[in-house]
Structure formats: structure tokens, C-alpha cells
């Protein structure tokens, strides 16, 4: 009697515009492309909302209403939620309706869909807290399951996340770790006490996410009958089928005319035809099943590419340089005390920026190229590198601004000490503020 657990990843990065060296020092808006290119974030959001989010949410609501046993889960990145609020409140409403059914679990992740765990544990924790707050604010729930960016996972992460109070964590059911063992059980990583690891059944998940419309696939066309039969076949060799995929599978990666919506519409009914089958959310699955063994992820695993490692974001020296560059300024970013600088810095941590710089398969032009809004990985790097220059310059200006204002107040202090001791603080603050305001008006 297998339990079926759906988790959909919902994410949109803030893509950088074509930001050139000439913009450094003048233009501090990095994400506001208004062209027809696929780096126009608002345009993309509307496109994907129309093709995927809105119709798929409507379908999921229909299914939840039709089948009281049906359950699903989502992880919405913080940068996705921000864009949803800004560009498409309608999409937000439709997600809220789903969560209101009580049968939709929301997972936590790093707010900025970042690789922070690899570079700064402090920032990692801060971003999860931000995410938790955001989910609470928009949906009124507090997640107990965690998924890290792109299912990047290792033992240390599991331990870390357990300490933060999470009961379950999501990972890729990578063959090189599982060996002969099945992903259709709950596992636990070495060093953890209770947190349960749910592993993606990548074969069945990818049958839907990647192979569904592939006519060269021997199983094409995939029907809901056939798929639920495959799910049934794991009976005796597992109790939990984890179907984890990008939400954009529906309508965006697999277009409507492939029949993906009809497939999904029929699937819960087919699976529930067998009275022993059921649907669970990740938190429910973690509660229901005990772990059967150890999932020893000594090295990082992820759900990306055939390698299932970090190479999509960190295989060439450009990517490494960019990543080291962005985390190297962490302390200065916070010291600046400038909310806009902090926010921009965080948006620059989104993993997609580094994915766009990946050269692994660039020459073959496969999935990386498909998902890359920049012409080449080099263009992606150059835009990013220029933005890094600019943000460093902004930090420097804040610093020198504060130093010079301090000097001024020192002079002021000498002159005015006997008169206005109480208003000293105000005097200190105001010149700096004015300076920033002036600079802002100059640049806009």
C-alpha cells in the first residue's frame, strides 16, 4: 500500500538585466529589464503564471475538491513570493485557496533560493527565518519540512536543519548513495537524531517531469493508468513514492498540448482506485513511517544534471569567483546598514545566476541553454561581475559617506558642545541621510 507524496518546487529568480561596466556607479537597479528579452522578470512571471501557475492551481483545487484523500505540497521560494505579490496577486490568491483546504503543505527553504549553506551558515539561517516569516504572513502556516536549494544536501545539512527544529528534509534519491537500496522508504542521515529524510524517486518523477512528452521514449504516450500501475508495482519494495518536481512541469516545460493537464486530472482517481493507496504530504509521511536505514551523504548531492552534484553552479572558475565574490562582502553589506544594499545582495545569491554561468554542456546546447536567458555563460558572468563592482562601490560610498559625516560632526561637536548636547545624535545622522538622498535623486 504505497503512499504517494507530491512536492512541487515553485521558483522564479530575479534575473539580472544586461548590466554593463558603464552602468557601474550610475545605475543601481539590477533587475528591472523592460525589454522583450527573457530577462524581463515581470514579463516572464506573467507568461509562466498564464501557462502554468493559474491553470495548474485551478486544476489542483479541482482535484482537492473532488478527492478528499488527495494531498500535495509546495515549496515557494521567497523571491518567487515577492514577485507574485508584486506582479500577480491573482496567483497569490490561488495558492492561498489551495493552502486553505488544509491538505496542502508548504515547505521551508532559503528565502533567496541560495547556496548560502555552502558559504555562510549565518546567512543560511537568516534566510530560512525570513522564509518562515513570509510563509506565515501569506499563508498562516509554519512549515516543519525543509528543502534546500536544488535539493542540495549532505549529512551536515541534515544535522543543521534538525537543530533548527525541522522534522523532515527532502533529498535526491541518488543512486551512488543508495546503491541497491530503494528510495521508497524513509531514511536518516548519520549524526541526526530524529529528522527524517525523504528521497525523490527520480525515475517516476522524471517520467512526468522530463519524459512525458518525449516521443522517442518507449513508454510514450504516458497515461495515468500506466503510471498508477507503476506506482502500484513498488508494493512490497517500499511504502512511499516521492514524486518531486518543478511546478513548471505543468504547462511550461510540458506544454498544455502534450496532454499533461489531462494526465494530472486523471491521476489521483487512478491511484485511488486501489483502496490501499493513499496520498501524504512530506510531514505526514515523516510522522507515519520510521526510517529504515542510513542515507550517508558524505559529499553534497543535488537533483541537478546527471552528475547530481554541485557542478551546475560551481564547476568553472567564473562561477567560483562569482560565488566567492558575493559572500566575501557579507560583513560589509550588513555594516552598511542599507536595506536596499542588503536586499540586492541577497537577490544576487539566487542559485540561478551561477547556473547561467555553467559551461558544462554549453557547446551541446541542452537543458542549460534552454534555461539560460543569456546568450552565453560569459554574458551571464559579465553582467553579474559588473553588478558586483557596483554593489562594492555602493558599500564604499556608504562607508566614506559615514566617515566624512563623522568628521563633520566632530567639528560640529567642538563648536556646539556647550549648547546642544541632547540633539547631538540627530546632528550626526542627518547629514549622512541627506547625502544618500541626494545621491539617489542623482541616479534616478
Amino acid at each position, binding site marked *: 500500500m504505497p503512499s504517494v507524496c507530491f512536492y512541487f518546487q515553485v521558483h522564479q529568480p530575479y534575473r539580472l538585466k544586461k548590466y554593463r*561596466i558603464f552602468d557601474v556607479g550610475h545605475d543601481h537597479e539590477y533587475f528591472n529589464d523592460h525589454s522583450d528579452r527573457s530577462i524581463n522578470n515581470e514579463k516572464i512571471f506573467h507568461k509562466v503564471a498564464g501557462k502554468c501557475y493559474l491553470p495548474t492551481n485551478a486544476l489542483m483545487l479541482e482535484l482537492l475538491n473532488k478527492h478528499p484523500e488527495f494531498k500535495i505540497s509546495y515549496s515557494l521560494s521567497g523571491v518567487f513570493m515577492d514577485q507574485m505579490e508584486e506582479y500577480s496577486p491573482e496567483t497569490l490568491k490561488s495558492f492561498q485557496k489551495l493552502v486553505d483546504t488544509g491538505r496542502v503543505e508548504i515547505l521551508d527553504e532559503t528565502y533567496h533560493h541560495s547556496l548560502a549553506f555552502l558559504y555562510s551558515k549565518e546567512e543560511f539561517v537568516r534566510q530560512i527565518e525570513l522564509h518562515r516569516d513570509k510563509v506565515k504572513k501569506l499563508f498562516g502556516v509554519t512549515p516543519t519540512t525543509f528543502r534546500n536549494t536544488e535539493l542540495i544536501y549532505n549529512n551536515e545539512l541534515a544535522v543543521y536543519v534538525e537543530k533548527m527544529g525541522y522534522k523532515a528534509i527532502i533529498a535526491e534519491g541518488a543512486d551512488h548513495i543508495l546503491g541497491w537500496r530503494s528510495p521508497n522508504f524513509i531514511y536518516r542521515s548519520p549524526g541526526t537524531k530524529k529528522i527524517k529524510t525523504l528521497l525523490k524517486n527520480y525515475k517516476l518523477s522524471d517520467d512526468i517531469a522530463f519524459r512525458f512528452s518525449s516521443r522517442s521514449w518507449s513508454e510514450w504516450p504516458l497515461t495515468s493508468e500506466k503510471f498508477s500501475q507503476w506506482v502500484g508495482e513498488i508494493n512490497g519494495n517500499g511504502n512511499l513514492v516521492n514524486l518531486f518536481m518543478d511546478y513548471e512541469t505543468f504547462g511550461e516545460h510540458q506544454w498544455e498540448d502534450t496532454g499533461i493537464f489531462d494526465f494530472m486530472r486523471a491521476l489521483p482517481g487512478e491511484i485511488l482506485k486501489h483502496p490501499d493507496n493513499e496520498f501524504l504530504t512530506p510531514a505526514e509521511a515523516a510522522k507515519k513511517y520510521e526510517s529504515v536505514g542510513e542515507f550517508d551523504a558524505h559529499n553534497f548531492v543535488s537533483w541537478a544534471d546527471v552528475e547530481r552534484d554541485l557542478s551546475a553552479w560551481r564547476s*568553472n*572558475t567564473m*562561477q567560483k*569567483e562569482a560565488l566567492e565574490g558575493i559572500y566575501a562582502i557579507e560583513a560589509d553589506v550588513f555594516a552598511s546598514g542599507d536595506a536596499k544594499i542588503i536586499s540586492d545582495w541577497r537577490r544576487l545569491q539566487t542559485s540561478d545566476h551561477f547556473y547561467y554561468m555553467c559551461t558544462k554542456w554549453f*557547446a551541446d546546447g541542452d537543458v542549460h541553454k534552454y534555461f539560460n536567458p543569456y546568450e552565453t555563460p*560569459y554574458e551571464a*558572468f*559579465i553582467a553579474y561581475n559588473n553588478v558586483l563592482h557596483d554593489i562594492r562601490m555602493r558599500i564604499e560610498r556608504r562607508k566614506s559617506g559615514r566617515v566624512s559625516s563623522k568628521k563633520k560632526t566632530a567639528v560640529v561637536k567642538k563648536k556646539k558642545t556647550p549648547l546642544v548636547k541632547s540633539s547631538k545624535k540627530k546632528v550626526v545622522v542627518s547629514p549622512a541621510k541627506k547625502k544618500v538622498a541626494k545621491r539617489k535623486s542623482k541616479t534616478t
Partner: protein
Amino acid sequence: MFGWEFPPHNSGGLGVACYGLTRSLSRRNVSVIFVLPKRIVGLHHDFLHIVFANIRNLKVRSVKSLIHPYITSDQYDDYLLKTPEKDLYGLNLFDEVRRYGLQARILASEEPHDVIHAHDWLSFRAGIEAKRTSGKPLIVHVHATEFDRTAGHPNQYIYEEERRGLHAADCIVAVSQHTKNVIVEHYGIKPEQVMVVHNGINYEEFRHDLPKVLQDVKAEGKRIVLFVGRITIQKGADYFIKVAKRVLEFDPNVLFIISGSGDMEHQIVRLALDVGISDKVVFAGFVRGDELLKLYRAADLYVMPSVSEPFGLTALEALANGTPILVSRQSGVSEVITHALKADFWDVDDMADKIVNVVSSRGLQQTLGELGSKDVEQVTWEKAAGKCMQIYDDIVRRAD
């Protein structure tokens, strides 16, 4: 095969291309009779034998002539004045081309052959005459057109010569899709008559360690951006200066080296002076062999801002040395190399943006260099020769 120049006495990519192609063809057991014009002034008669000592199946015939590749009509007149009277043949460049064509007739009747393969316009007439004599199929190989060389302002006579050759040919080979487009667009040729055979490179010959002296220069932190090519309107040398000016506004620590000579040289020197960057631009003159390899190795980036570049072998040579390249989108080499920066030659800002980033980012420079030099390994003369063989076979079969 009618060619025009050969290393080490070449002045451009044509000689390198003919050499690479001929060598790979000979390895495939194709016998090549290579016909070369022999310039009278200052040329060793024996160099061909030295060059070809290690190539089997090759016979070289030379013909006395004043012509050499990239010659202009004015230059020919200049040569004419300096040449001893007894060596004079044609009254001007065009007469000389015609005279050379007539000599090809004699050659064609003396040397048995299956196909005639003529490289670029100066040899087209010779190819046509040879075909008229022997009746064998003619392949014309286009390494550059008059439109490329003059950036869109062709000399009418040369254009006519090219057109005649293209229309007389049984098959046309273009060194790139870019060149094929030019041929189709400007010469009234149907696309299906033109085969694209990209040039190649023996990358191993270009891999050497950086000499100590240049290592020291680089250790000082100076960044080097290199231009190699004839200083002509085609190669976009003026854009190189404009880009240099723009780059220096952001990074004064960059040195721009121009290697080559050409009819725009004085103009370019002036331009560098006028925009106030003459201290950052070094004119290295025409450099070849080891010296050139050293330059490639020393450079942080090789830039080829050609207005119209049929192929662009020097970019491959730079890349074989692990030096990243920034090439004009209007070039053949951009068709065969993935790991390169590409820009429109007129987009000075875009090129400057890319240059500033390469010289300031080790990560970008290293990734481009490493992956680019792997790309180069795939661009071989063996591949080019293989395609030519295929064309020979097809054309001979069709003729039978």
C-alpha cells in the same frame, strides 16, 4: 591547385590555409600540383622545397609574376616601377592577372590532373584557363571576397574577376557560412552551389610556454590586449583603437598591442595619438613565427574586431595558446568556436565591456582560455581535407 602564398613568406591567412589544407590532403593520398606565382623582388627560390620537404605527393610549380596576395592596383604600379625591365610582363595588375591565366593553360596541358582547385580571385582566371584546356572540373575556394577586403566598397574590376570565377566554377568552397552568405548575396550564386569548409589549425604547433621575459612583464600586473592582422579597413583596426580608448577609461593598466602592417597603419597611429592613448598602444609591426607565438602567449585577450572576416585563423592561433578571444560576430571563426566572446564590430561599448571584464577577472579569463583551447582541438585541417575529398569525389563522379 592554384595558390598564392606559402609560409614562411605569407602575409596573411591564405598561405597558412593553403599549407594546412595541402598537407592534410597529401596525407590522404591526394597528389597535389601546387602552382605558385613567384615574385621577382626579394624571394628565395628554394623555400618551397624546404617547406614541402616533409610532404609527400606534392609537386610545386612556380610561375614568374609580380602579383602577391592582398595586392592593390596602386601597389602593383609601385612594384612595376622598381622592377628591372627585362622581368616586366604585364602593364598593370590586371594585365598581369590575365597573363598569369594564360600561363596556366600551358601548365594544364603539361600536368595530368583530375580536378582544378583555385584559391581566391587572383587565381580564378588561371583556374578558368586550366579548365578550358583540360576540361576538368573547377573548384574555386573563397578565403575572402572583395566585399570583405574593402568593407563593402569593392573595386569593380576585382569584383568582376571574382564573379567570373564563381560563375565558371563547378563547385564553390567557402571558408565559412558568413562567406557563403556574402557570395550568395553579392555574386548571384545559388546557395546550393556553395559548400562550407571551415579552416582548421594544427593546434599543437601553437602551444608553447611563455618565455621568461614576458612572464616578468605580466608579473608587474600589466594586462595585454592583442590585435593581429593586416591594418586595413577589413580588419577593423580603427575599432580596436576606439575600443582601447573606452577600456582605458575604466582600467588604465591595460596595454594594447597591434601586430601587423597595412595601408591604414599611419591613419591608425594618428588615431591613437588623436584620442590621447598613444602611450598605451604598441605597434609591433609584422611579426611571425616564434615572435608571434610569444605575443599570443603574453596576451590576456586576443581581439579581432573585423568588419567582415571570412575566417580569422589568427583567432584560432591565439586560442590554441590558451589565450581567450573576443571576435566579431561578422567572422567565420565565430561559427566554429563556442567558447569565445562575440560582439558586433561596431558595438564599441559591448567590446569594451567584455575586455574590461576579461582583464579584471581571472575566472572569466581562465574559463574562456581553457574551454576555448579545447574547442580549437576540434577544428582541424584533417576535417577540412576530408570535406574537400568528398567534394573532389562528387565532382569527378558527376563529370564522368
